[in-house]
């Protein structure tokens, strides 16, 4: 590792580690902050390059926050990717690990029952809201929305495998599009 790479890795860590803690409720919240740091503050990428990286992260499978990995890779190669990924995902990993351990050690404690009972309605509301927002912003018009409904029915009422479901969704919308434009 050259000193230039090391410097850049340290800067990557300084950008992503604080943002790691700010990702309550979903990684989407930090995207605009990441863009500001990467494009305006550090000039690691042009605005167009950032949009491109964002599109790749959306298209690829896995957590959307792997955008950090991609940025790290483009800024400082292999070590950049490792550092950016660990900085974004690492610090809070210890937090949930600690909580998971506490949960096992104090199974059934009053505070634990209260935390579960108190947080589950909030989580349910947040999950419902994120599905609502996702469905609203879905590309592909009413056909895609209909597909989302049909998919929900399939998951609830059948034992269809998730992979088959995803492949069928992609295939169906592509076929529809092809028929409409042919």
């Amino acid at each position, binding site marked *: 590792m050259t000193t230039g790479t090391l410097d850049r890795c340290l800067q990557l860590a300084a950008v992503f580690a604080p943002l790691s803690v700010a990702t309550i*409720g979903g990684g989407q919240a930090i995207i605009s902050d990441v863009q500001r740091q990467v494009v305006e503050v550090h000039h690691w990428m042009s605005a167009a390059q950032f949009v491109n990286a964002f599109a790749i992260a959306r298209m690829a499978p896995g957590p959307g926050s792997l955008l950090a990995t991609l940025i790290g890779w483009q800024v400082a190669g292999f070590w950049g990717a490792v550092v950016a990924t660990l900085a974004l995902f690492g*610090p*809070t990993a210890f937090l949930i690990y600690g909580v998971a351990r506490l949960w096992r050690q104090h199974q059934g404690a009053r505070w634990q029952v209260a935390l579960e009972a108190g947080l589950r309605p909030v989580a349910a509301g947040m999950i419902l809201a994120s599905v609502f927002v996702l469905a609203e912003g879905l590309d592909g018009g009413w056909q895609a929305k209909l597909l989302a409904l049909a998919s929900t029915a399939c998951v609830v009422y059948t034992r269809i495998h998730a992979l088959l479901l995803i492949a069928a*969704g992609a295939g169906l919308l592509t076929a529809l599009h092809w028929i409409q434009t042919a």
Partner: protein
Amino acid sequence: MTEPPAPPPTVRDLFLAFALIGLTSFGGGLSGRMMRDFVQERRWLGEEDFLNGLALSQALPGVNVKNLAIWVGYRLCGWRGAVAGFTGIIVPPAALIIALGTVFARLTRYPLTHVALAGAAAAAIGLSMSMAITSVARLPRRMFPLALMAFTFIAVAVLHWPLVWTVLGAGGLGVAVEYRRTAAPREGA
């Protein structure tokens, strides 16, 4: 519903299961995929256990999917399982995104790619929606939890309040009320 739980997985099983989800979750919906996979298909984990982990993963800082992978991994195989969950859900797709970054970039130029991706995303909503339905259906039928759920939904989806304050406010209120409730003497207790 009443089917017996499956034998517990090994650390290797866990890593492979997480890696498969990480590598094939086109269109998002990873948490819903985990519920489908671990609770309904493989039956490694009970629904209640999963939903409690989901609630904590949402409330704690950090990328939710990663939090949930660590929670599920730890419940099933202790610290080795937590490591398997963390690395399985992150490292394989991270390697893929770097290896295929240029391929994905080229693919994004074709209109058909976006149509296929929109189809995958629409189908993935089914997984998330099913998880949302289960989360709501398993809430106790009391006024307070249902009102808190509705309030959170409106705050996030309609009013677009910042997530951090919504989680801290609604979560804090929920926990405080439930803590008081468990202290109240119950009938027959």
